[in-house]
C-alpha cells in the first residue's frame, strides 16, 4: 500500500460527507425548512425548491473540490491534519451557506405571513404513546465487550511478550508494548467500555425526548417523535456494536490473528456501515419522524411560531422549557436546550472528551 491510497481514502471521506449533507434539506419536515417554521404550502414554493437544490449541489460541489485538492496535492499538505483540516473548512463553508439560506427563508416567510396575529399554541395528547424498546438491546454492546474480553483472556497465554500496538496506514508497526493484561485489553477497556456506556446512555436519554414538532397535529407529532426516538435508540446501539466490532478486529490484528496488512480494511469496513445505515434511516423516517406522521386533522398552517427560540435555526435557547434534548431543526437527530444548565455541562463534556483524547494520543 502506498501513501496514494491514503489520499484516495481522505478524498472519499470528504465526498461522503458532502453526499450526506446534500440530503439534509430533504430529511427535514416541510413545516420546518432551513431552521425556519413555515406554513406547509411554502414547501413547494419555487424559491424554496431552488434553495434546497442550491444547498444540496453546493454541499456536493464543495466537497468534490476539496476532495480533488486532497487527492492531487495531498503530498504537499502537512501530515495527518489534512483530512481534519479539510473537513473543518468544509463544515465552516457549509455553515455559512446554511446561514445565508436560513435568513433568506426568514425573508420568504415574512412575505407569506399575511393573516392574523402571530400564534403560539402548543399541544399534545395526554394519552400515553408506547415508546419502549426491547431492553435487551442495551445489553448487546456489553455482550460484545464481554466476548472481546473473553477472547483476549483466552489468547493471552499464547501472545508474544512484546507486540505492536500501533500501525501506520501501510500496516507497518511503528510502536511496541510489552505484554500485560492491561496492554493486551487496552482498546476494549479504554474505548469499548466507555463507548458502550455512552451510547447506551444516549439511547436511554433519546427515548425520553418528547417535544411536539407540529402542534397543529399533536397526535401525529407525538406518535412520530416516539417512533423517531425508538429508531434512533436502535441506531445508537447499532453504532455501539460497530465500534465494538472495530475494536475486536483491530485487537485481532494486534494479537496477530489477522494479518497486519488488513488493518485498514478491518477498521474502515465496519465504520463505513454506519453512514449508509444512518442515511437510510434518516430518509425513511425523516427528522423528528415526520415522514411517518399521520395527519390528525391538522390544518398545516403554523400554530406555533417559535423561531425566536432558535438562534440561526440551529441553537435552541428556551428557559421556559425543562427539556435538555429536543429534536434538531436542521439536520438529523437531537440538540441541546442551551438555556438548561445541564446542557452546558453536557456541552463541556462533549468538547472536553475529544480534546482529552487528542492530548492523550499526541502526548503518548
Amino acid at each position, binding site marked *: 500500500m502506498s501513501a496514494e491510497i491514503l489520499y484516495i481514502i481522505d478524498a472519499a471521506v470528504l465526498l461522503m460527507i458532502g453526499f450526506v449533507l446534500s440530503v439534509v434539506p430533504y430529511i427535514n419536515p416541510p413545516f420546518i425548512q432551513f431552521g425556519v417554521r413555515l406554513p406547509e404550502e411554502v414547501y413547494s414554493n419555487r424559491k424554496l425548491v431552488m434553495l434546497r437544490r442550491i444547498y444540496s449541489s453546493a454541499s456536493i460541489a464543495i466537497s468534490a473540490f476539496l476532495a480533488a485538492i486532497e487527492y492531487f496535492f495531498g503530498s504537499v499538505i502537512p501530515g495527518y491534519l489534512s483530512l481534519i483540516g479539510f473537513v473543518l473548512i468544509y463544515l465552516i463553508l457549509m455553515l455559512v451557506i446554511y446561514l445565508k439560506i436560513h435568513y433568506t427563508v426568514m425573508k420568504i416567510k415574512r412575505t407569506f405571513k399575511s393573516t392574523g396575529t402571530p400564534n403560539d*399554541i402548543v399541544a399534545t395528547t*395526554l394519552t400515553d404513546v408506547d415508546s419502549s424498546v426491547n431492553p435487551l438491546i442495551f445489553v448487546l454492546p456489553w455482550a460484545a465487550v464481554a466476548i472481546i474480553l473473553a477472547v483476549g483472556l483466552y489468547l493471552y497465554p499464547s501472545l508474544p511478550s512484546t507486540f505492536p500496538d500501533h500501525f501506520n496506514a501501510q500496516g507497518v508497526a511503528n510502536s511496541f508494548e510489552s505484554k500485560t493484561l492491561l496492554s493486551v485489553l487496552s482498546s476494549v477497556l479504554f474505548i469499548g467500555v466507555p463507548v458502550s456506556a455512552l451510547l447506551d446512555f444516549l439511547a436511554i436519554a433519546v427515548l425520553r425526548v418528547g*417535544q411536539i414538532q407540529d402542534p397543529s397535529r*399533536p*397526535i401525529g407529532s407525538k*406518535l412520530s417523535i416516539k417512533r423517531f426516538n425508538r429508531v434512533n435508540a436502535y441506531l445508537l446501539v447499532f453504532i455501539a456494536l460497530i465500534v465494538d466490532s472495530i475494536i475486536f478486529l483491530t485487537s485481532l490484528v494486534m494479537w496477530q490473528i489477522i494479518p497486519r496488512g488488513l488493518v485498514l480494511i478491518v477498521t474502515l469496513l465496519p465504520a463505513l456501515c454506519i453512514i449508509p445505515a444512518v442515511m437510510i434511516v434518516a430518509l425513511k423516517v425523516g427528522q423528528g419522524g415526520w415522514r411517518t406522521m*399521520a395527519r*390528525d386533522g391538522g390544518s398545516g398552517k403554523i400554530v406555533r411560531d417559535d423561531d425566536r427560540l432558535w438562534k440561526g435555526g440551529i441553537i435552541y435557547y*428556551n428557559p421556559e422549557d425543562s427539556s435538555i434534548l429536543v429534536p434538531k431543526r436542521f439536520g438529523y437527530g437531537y440538540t441541546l436546550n442551551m438555556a438548561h444548565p445541564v446542557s452546558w455541562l453536557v456541552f463541556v463534556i462533549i468538547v472536553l472528551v475529544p480534546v482529552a483524547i487528542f492530548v492523550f494520543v499526541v502526548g503518548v
Partner: protein
Amino acid sequence: MSIDVNAKERHGGEMKLGYHNDVKNHDVENAGRGVITLDLNDPRPLYMQIVESILRLIENNRMKLGDSLPSSRKLSGELGINYHTVNRAYEILIHDGILQIDRKKRITIARGISESAIGRIGMWKMKIWGMIEEMISAGFSKTDILMVLSSLIGDVAEGYN
C-alpha cells in the same frame, strides 16, 4: 361489554392519515383521546390553562375515571414548557380530588367533574377569568367590573324568567 357510542364523534372524521400510510389507525385513535392545547400568548397563566384543559377533557368524556395522565416531566417535555407549571396544575387538581397519585406514582383521574368543587365552580371561574382580565387591562376598576356584572346578572335573570 359496552359499546362506545361516542367513539365516532370523538375522533372520527378528522383523523386522516397523511404522509405515509404505515400508521395504524388504532394508534391514532387511542392517542386521540385527550388532546391538551395551550396558548402561550393567552394572558391566563399556563397552569390554569392546563387545569381547564383537563377539566374539559373529563367533562367531554374524553378522559374517564381511572385513566392515567403522563408525568409532569413527560408532559412538560412534550409541550416544551417548565415542569413546575405542569406540577402546579396537577397539584391543584389533586388538591381538589379530581386527580390522585396511586401506589406506582401514576397520576390518574379519581373523580368526575360534577363531584368536585373545581368542577362546580372552577369551570365557570376560569371562563370568566379571561373576560375580567381584559376588562382590567382596558382600565376598568374592581367596582366598575362588579357593577357591570351585577347589572348583567339582573338583565339575564330577567330575560330568563
